[in-house]
C-alpha cells in the first residue's frame, strides 16, 4: 500500500526500485530520493516501476522533475514499466514521448549503453 524505495548501482546507471503507491501522500519521498541521488552525482537513473500499484499526476510530476534535473547534467532518466494501468497515465499525458520506457532493467541499461 505504502511506498517502498530502494536503489543500487548497475554499471553506470543507478537503479531506483519503487514499490507501492506514488500519490500526493508519498510522492515527496520519491522526489527527495531523486534529488539526493542527483546531488551525489548519479546522472543516469533507471526507475523500475514494475511493482508500482498506483501512480497519479503528482507522481508523474516528480518523475518529470527528476528528468529535468538529470538533463541539466546531460544525464538520463528512463523507466521500466510493462503494466498497462500505469502506462495509461503516461499515454494520456503524452509522457510516453518524453521518457524512455523499457520492458526490463537490463533492456533499459542496454539501451543507455548503445546510446552513448
Amino acid at each position, binding site marked *: 500500500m505504502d511506498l517502498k524505495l530502494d536503489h543500487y548501482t548497475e554499471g553506470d546507471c543507478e537503479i531506483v526500485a519503487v514499490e507501492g*503507491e506514488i*500519490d*500526493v*501522500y508519498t510522492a515527496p519521498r520519491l522526489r527527495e530520493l531523486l534529488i539526493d541521488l542527483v546531488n551525489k552525482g548519479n546522472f543516469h537513473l533507471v526507475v523500475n516501476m514494475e511493482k508500482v500499484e*498506483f501512480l*497519479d*499526476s*503528482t507522481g*508523474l*510530476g*516528480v518523475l*518529470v*522533475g527528476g*528528468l*529535468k534535473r538529470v*538533463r541539466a547534467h546531460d544525464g538520463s532518466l528512463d523507466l521500466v514499466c510493462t503494466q*498497462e*494501468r500505469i502506462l*495509461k*497515465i503516461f499515454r*494520456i*499525458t*503524452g*509522457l510516453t*514521448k*518524453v521518457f524512455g520506457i523499457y520492458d526490463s532493467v537490463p533492456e533499459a541499461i542496454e539501451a543507455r549503453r548503445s546510446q552513448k
Partner: protein
Amino acid sequence: MATVELIISALPAHVRTARLVATAVARRIGLAGSTLDEVRLAVGEACSRAVEAHRAHCPGEPVRLELSDHAGRFEVVVADNAPGGQEALQRQVPTQVGESALPDVLAPDVGLAVIAGLADDVDFDATPSGMRVRMSWPAVPATQTSGNPA
C-alpha cells in the same frame, strides 16, 4: 445503491481514504478491471487537486465527495471551496505535456487532463467560490455480479 458522501479535511493522507471508498463502492456496484482502475485514478486526481487547492487557500475547510448510482451510472462529484478553478479551466487543459516545454513540476492542471482522459463522462464546473468535478461511468447492474458463484 444510493448515495455515500465523504467529507475529508484537506490532508494528503485523506486522498487515500477517498480512493479507498470510491473503489469499494464502485466495486460493490459491479465495476471491475480497468474501469475500477480508472475510477481510482480519476477520483484520486480530483481529490489531490482539491486538497492541494485547499491547502493553498483554505486549509481549514474540508473537501466533499459524493458517490451515487443512478440512471445506470456510477457518479462521483468532488467539490472544493478554493478559488482558481475558473482560471485553470480557461487555461485550456493541456492534454499533452510537450517535450519542448518540459516543466519543472507538472502544473496541477495536468490532473484535470488526466481526469478528462479517464472518466467515461466528465463535467468541470468552476465558480469563484470553488470547483465541482462530476465524473461518471456506466454501472453494471449489481445483480449481475453480486451473487456468490459458490
